[in-house]
């Protein structure tokens, strides 16, 4: 809003003008809440599709035969812990601790990537060892499209947080990313280099909004993990 507020060192002062709305809630945050309400319906539709077909065809596929619940449980735990790191990133951002925020963001991204690797491994295992593909059965169709959509959400989240991590790097990093770092391949350099050094205190709001998205994607995974994986074990446990 005002340039003098944006240049201040006080993160709270930088964020204050954004709250001058009819409700006192920042516009971006409100829009994100509306998007998340909408996203609930996206996942609701996919989860219903999966559960309906599970009920219609209870015995065609026996998922517990190939599910690796220890691995999925572990990656679910990692994803939940990434939410903790995300919360710490937002907290650091609001305190104006940019270096701390960057470290926690990197942690969140790392945990997100572990989760995605778990999913890639799992899909690979299901396709190669269990013969479960998009067209092997309706279960394959609903399972891959549902968990795949969630995976895409996590991947987009990782991309989003990576952008903010790049933004939060100090300005002199731009030189490394453009010229020095040979290990960074070209597209990443082209995309991320212009972001370096752009983070301002008022962007704490943007990190918080990205955090809302990240937490939401985690919460959806709790529902998917329960509805797609855990309930399959109820008969084994005698329920």
């Amino acid at each position, binding site marked *: 809003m005002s340039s003098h507020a944006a240049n201040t060192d006080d993160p709270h002062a930088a964020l204050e003008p954004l709250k001058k709305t009819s409700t006192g809630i920042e*516009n971006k945050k*409100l829009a994100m809440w509306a998007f998340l309400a909408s996203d609930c319906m996206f996942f609701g539709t996919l989860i219903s*599709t999966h559960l309906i077909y599970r009920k219609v065809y209870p015995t065609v596929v026996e998922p517990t035969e190939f599910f690796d619940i220890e691995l999925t449980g572990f990656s679910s735990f990692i994803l939940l812990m990434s939410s903790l790191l995300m919360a710490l990133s937002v907290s650091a951002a609001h305190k104006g601790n940019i270096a701390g925020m960057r470290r926690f963001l990197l942690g969140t991204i790392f945990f997100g990537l572990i989760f995605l690797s778990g999913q890639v491994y799992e899909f690979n295992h299901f396709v190669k060892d269990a013969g479960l593909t998009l067209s092997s*059965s*309706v279960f394959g169709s609903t399972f891959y499209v549902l968990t795949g959509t969630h995976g895409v959400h996590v991947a987009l989240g990782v991309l989003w947080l990576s952008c903010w991590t790049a933004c939060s790097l100090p300005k002199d990093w731009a030189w490394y990313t453009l010229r020095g770092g040979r290990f960074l391949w070209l597209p990443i350099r082209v995309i991320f280099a212009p972001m370096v050094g752009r983070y301002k205190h008022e962007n704490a709001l943007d990190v918080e909004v990205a955090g809302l998205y990240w937490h939401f994607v985690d919460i959806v995974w709790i529902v998917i993990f329960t509805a797609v994986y855990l309930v399959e074990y109820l008969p084994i446990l005698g329920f």
Partner: protein
Amino acid sequence: MASTVETEHHAPAPAEPVRDGIWRRPLKNTGLVGFLTTVDHKKIGIGYALGALFFLLLGGVEALIIRAQLMYPEQELISARTYNQLFTMHGTTMIFLAVMPLSAAFFNYIMPLQIGARDVAFPRMNALGLWCFLLGGVLLNLSWFFPGGAPAIGWFAYAPLTDRQYSPDMGTDFWIMGLQILGIASLVGAFNFITTIVNMRAPGLSMMRLPLFTWMTLITSFLIILAFPAITIALVELMFDRHFGTYFFNVEGGGKPILWQHLFWIFGHPEVYILILPAMGIISEILPVFSRKPLFGYPLIVFSGAVIGFLGFAVWSHHMFTTGLGVVATTAFAFLTMLIAIPTGVKIFNWIGTMWGGRIRFTTPMLFSVGFIWMFMMGGFTGIMHSSPPVDAQQQDTYFVVAHFHYVLIGGSIFALFAGMYYWFPKVTGRLMDDFVGKIVFYLMFVGFNLAFFPMHILGMTGMPRRTHTYKSEMGWDQSNFWSTIGAFILGVGILIFVIQIVYAYYKGRKSPKDPWDSRTLEWDTDSPPKEYNFAYTPVIHARDQVWEDKYGVEAKRMEKIAPGKHGIHMPDQSWWPLITSIGLFIACLGMVFHKQPIPLTAEAVFGLEIVIFGLVATFVGMVAWALEGPGGFHLHPDPAEYADATPAPEDGHGHH
């Protein structure tokens, strides 16, 4: 609201030059570049309106070809397949490309003015919505030019007809991907409108002082964000069935076609209210103005609008009574459907109550509004008939249903949207539309519409099935079909005269004062057409019908005005990125259509997912550049004469944004 480093276009020396984008931001706000890069909600609203009117004419021509084919029994004017394509494209075009965007045109143009906002919350996202709408319409209609032509699946595209086996051509893929882009347009628009209405109201404009049209915009936006995901996912599932061999709706692999019906109507029924609630909002603005009375029962109209929206999610299966849902489900859905008659009836009684005892002026907008009440009620009555499952079983898939929904969609939505166009045209263009010609248009449309669609009730009762290419003379349907076709052409003539009139009035119409109708709401307090910055001052609201109170009310309810601060009024910068992002999406969707499909010239499948990936990368680059560019912004300094009666801004103020 915008959080950014500001470049002061008007200040002599900017403190620090900012190069945020890949190229310089466009500054020219006229001509083609000005239009392609605009972020002004008013220009975007006009863009929506022009696009919607074009598609209204296109869908209208499709309808007239259909009616010409049915004019006489056993005609072969067009082939059965072309006929199927025409009714599919007619329905899809009218719903997604004509009525919805025409409503969106009013959301865009009128709503920010009604709440005293400078613009919507996210001006660039608003532009993205416009481009996605236009490109979605283009994508859908591109299908005509490819082998197999347009989709022939009906506007609700029931499985298993949409399976690759039964609809092998690309038309269905164009339909799927076109609707996907249009869904994005509706969704980004809705997020924007919700944020704008909830967060950017002028000081003193509490929710229960909002003009009814703004209220209905809000409720419609909530319906959009909660209903569209169902069809988005259904379309994704259908796309996977057709391209990647899944079995969501494919019977062969165990899929259940009935699932498509559920998912489609979970979206489809709220969609009906997405089409009618904005119309109800427009009517609720116009009736008080021309009755010279406040809206009767304002809170009841607001709440019944919300109740209609809420119940809209609980009645989808009444479209599926004949599929055999079971007694309990059928009863429950019948009961809930009947329940919707209550809030709708409340609204109709309130509108009648508004007119009752008023000093009514029968101008063109008022005629369309009164026509709306009557015609919408007719459609509502047949709607109540369908809510009874045994009656519905008789009427399912007959012309009775066609009559019903055309009464609510033309007699309802279209009449109200025409009322809105006549009502707000002077505000948008600063020129008046001739009332006499307007009345001719109304009567032509009214007579033509009733002549076209009333006989369809009888046709349906006597068993004429919907979507039939032709019929035998012995069925006794000749007379009704003949007159129905005559009526449709009269309706078409009415709309044609309207188009000529609107073009004429734009260039040659008499100049309009800023408040030609003696209106009641805030948009009439600013210039006609409004300046780029909408209001030169921040309005402080003290009453529901603020402009009316300013003219006739007591001193205590008059509007206060706050002058812009010394920085002037903050304006967002124009941008190329919404257009580029939407083109990226368009390419990705087109690539999905071509995926493994024989395309012209090669007659062989040449594309995998290359085009899709290219399009998605373009979209991503567009979004990143969009974010890096930032909202930008500059300050405008309106002529002090425009806010001569305003109180000075407080010291820290920057005027309203």
